[in-house]
């Protein structure tokens, strides 16, 4: 196979002939499911038995469990060896337990009083520090989620369905949060000589938050024009990033969010069940499909 390097060719033949069989993805799914089960259980425990559990005992037990989860990752780091997938998910569980623990402790002891949301900032800092110290993308995602929660954006995509989605405040906070994440990434890129270590994670979080912010503005009559302008600017930036780096998802963000935003605006100006409204949305969708197809082909040709 002249067009493949030897390693890729050997690997492909081994996979095709099933000489070697990896259950990596199955194990990763099982690890994720186990972490999800435990943290959901802890979440219900906190919610349902607040009054029955001794607060100090509970905070202590959670902290102890979290520490135990951090141990394999710390051990691997101290020995300078690569962390296993299981240790990575244990670290994630530990970080999630810390989040639950601190949230519970703040609810019980009201350390910050009226400014209770500061515990989210502490969590963002703590998880950020852990992510850099132990080089974990998964923990960094928790840091960024905590930061977004501190800005008042909690619940991920579910927020899109909520009644608060169309509030101008949410849009501003989302855009501001995205800007902070990009600044964080820029500092990381500046400090770390090899470039930003978690560039991809930052980019995806910032892009989605900024687009949600722009969509929120598009849904609000008073900021619609600003929303469309910001949406188009973000789309241009996302497509440019995607085309330059070969990351197709950013091209999809740019085209998809723009089509969604413009359809929302059309739906508000012209009633959607009307012929003109449906025709306008149809035109937007067809243009989006044509643009995405063109960019997709171009991307494939440039990054083959």
């Amino acid at each position, binding site marked *: 196979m002249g067009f493949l390097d030897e390693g890729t060719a050997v690997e492909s033949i081994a996979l095709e002939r099933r000489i070697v*069989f990896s259950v990596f993805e199955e194990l990763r799914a099982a690890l994720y499911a186990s972490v999800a089960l435990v943290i959901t259980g802890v979440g219900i425990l906190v919610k349902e038995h607040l009054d029955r559990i001794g607060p100090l005992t509970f905070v202590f037990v959670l902290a102890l469990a979290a520490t135990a989860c951090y141990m394999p990752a710390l051990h691997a780091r101290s020995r300078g060896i690569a962390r296993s997938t299981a240790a990575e998910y244990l670290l994630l569980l530990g970080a999630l337990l810390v989040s639950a623990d601190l949230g519970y402790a703040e609810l019980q002891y009201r350390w910050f009083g009226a400014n209770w949301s500061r515990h989210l900032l502490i969590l963002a800092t703590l998880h950020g520090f852990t992510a850099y110290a132990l080089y974990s993308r*998964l923990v960094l995602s928790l840091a960024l989620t905590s930061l977004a929660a501190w800005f008042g954006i909690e619940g991920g995509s579910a927020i899109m369905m909520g009644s608060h989605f169309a509030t101008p405040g949410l849009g501003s906070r989302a855009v501001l949060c995205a800007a902070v994440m990009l600044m964080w990434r820029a500092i990381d890129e500046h400090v770390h000589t090899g470039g930003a270590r978690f560039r991809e994670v930052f980019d995806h979080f910032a892009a989605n938050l900024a687009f949600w912010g722009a969509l929120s503005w598009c849904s609000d009559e008073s900021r619609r024009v600003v929303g469309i302008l910001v949406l188009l600017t973000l789309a241009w930036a996302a497509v440019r990033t995607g085309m330059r780096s070969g990351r197709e998802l950013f091209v*999809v963000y740019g085209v998809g969010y723009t089509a969604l935003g413009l359809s929302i605006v059309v739906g508000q100006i012209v009633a959607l069940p009307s012929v003109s409204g449906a025709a306008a949305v149809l035109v937007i969708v067809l243009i989006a499909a044509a643009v995405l197809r063109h960019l997709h082909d171009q991307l494939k040709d440039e990054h083959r």
Partner: protein
Amino acid sequence: MIWRPASSQERWLALARRLRRSARTAPFAEHTGGWRTANVWSRCAFFVLGLVAALMMAIIGSHLWPGFETTITGLMAIATAEWLILGRRHFHSGIEESLEVTGLSMLAYEGWSRLTTSEYVGAAFLGSALLIAGFRVLSPIFTALSTLCFVLALDAPPWGSGLACYAIGLVALITGRHRFRRPSYDLMLDYLVIVMPVAGYLWSTSRSNLMIGTDYLHASLAQWLVPACSLAYAAIALAIGLRRRVHAPLVSCMLCLACCAYELRALTGLTLEARLIAWGCVLLAISMTLERYLRVPHKEITSQRIQDDANSLRILDVAGSAALMPHSPIRAAVPNFEGGGGQFGGGGASGEY
């Protein structure tokens, strides 16, 4: 007329996808016959855009041709999909798939609504539409959905439908031994292997048990058959998956075990949170043990990653982790908390809770 990629062209397209190379470049371009595909995210986006386009066409049709909108819109959607396939050589691109399936579903709906009101006949009509679309665009999702529709159309009691699903799953599992020349036919069987036992469980378990757990300590033998079927299928799938070194039966086994665990959830008498934590810890321990044991390949099976994730798929684990982040208990404890009501730098928090 060339109406879809030849099996050899499809294999070359699959190889290009596996090696993350463009099918429009050498040496793939010489073997793919000019067929164009899309990567996973673009395909999803195209699929959604196609669905929205079909919906808008239906709205316009309802104003322009009242009474015939479904037929005309369906035909237009199919015509557009066929133009994309035959004229533009789109294959697994998303948009032609959604247009084809919505067009055929609209025609099926129209045929059903004019002939009868029986929902079972409706399921058969929809199943036929999905089957035709599935084989036309070679989509395993559509063929799996069509199988479910045909099982629904049998109008059998829940147990009968459940057993039919398990039987289809087993047939697919056994047939999977044969490797087809078309990768999409293999995928169709894989999807049946995964989907049918889960559908079989959902059909055979009682509706009440999905909400409130059955007391299996005092259950009849017939009731025990529900988890037993899932468990038996899981065991067979595990054995076949490990023997043939294929993923679909292993995924199916994991899902069947999850169904079985859900069905038997009331067996221990523990509270929900205790069960979640306990079984989560057990699953964690098993996964960690297996991961450690298989680090060095055992009978050619390893827990090590062989191929790097595609760039575009790497973000999934990050998104999954972010989704697990517990919501602030303070926010949850305050029912009238308004997320957007506060000042900057406070998470929308005014502190009035």
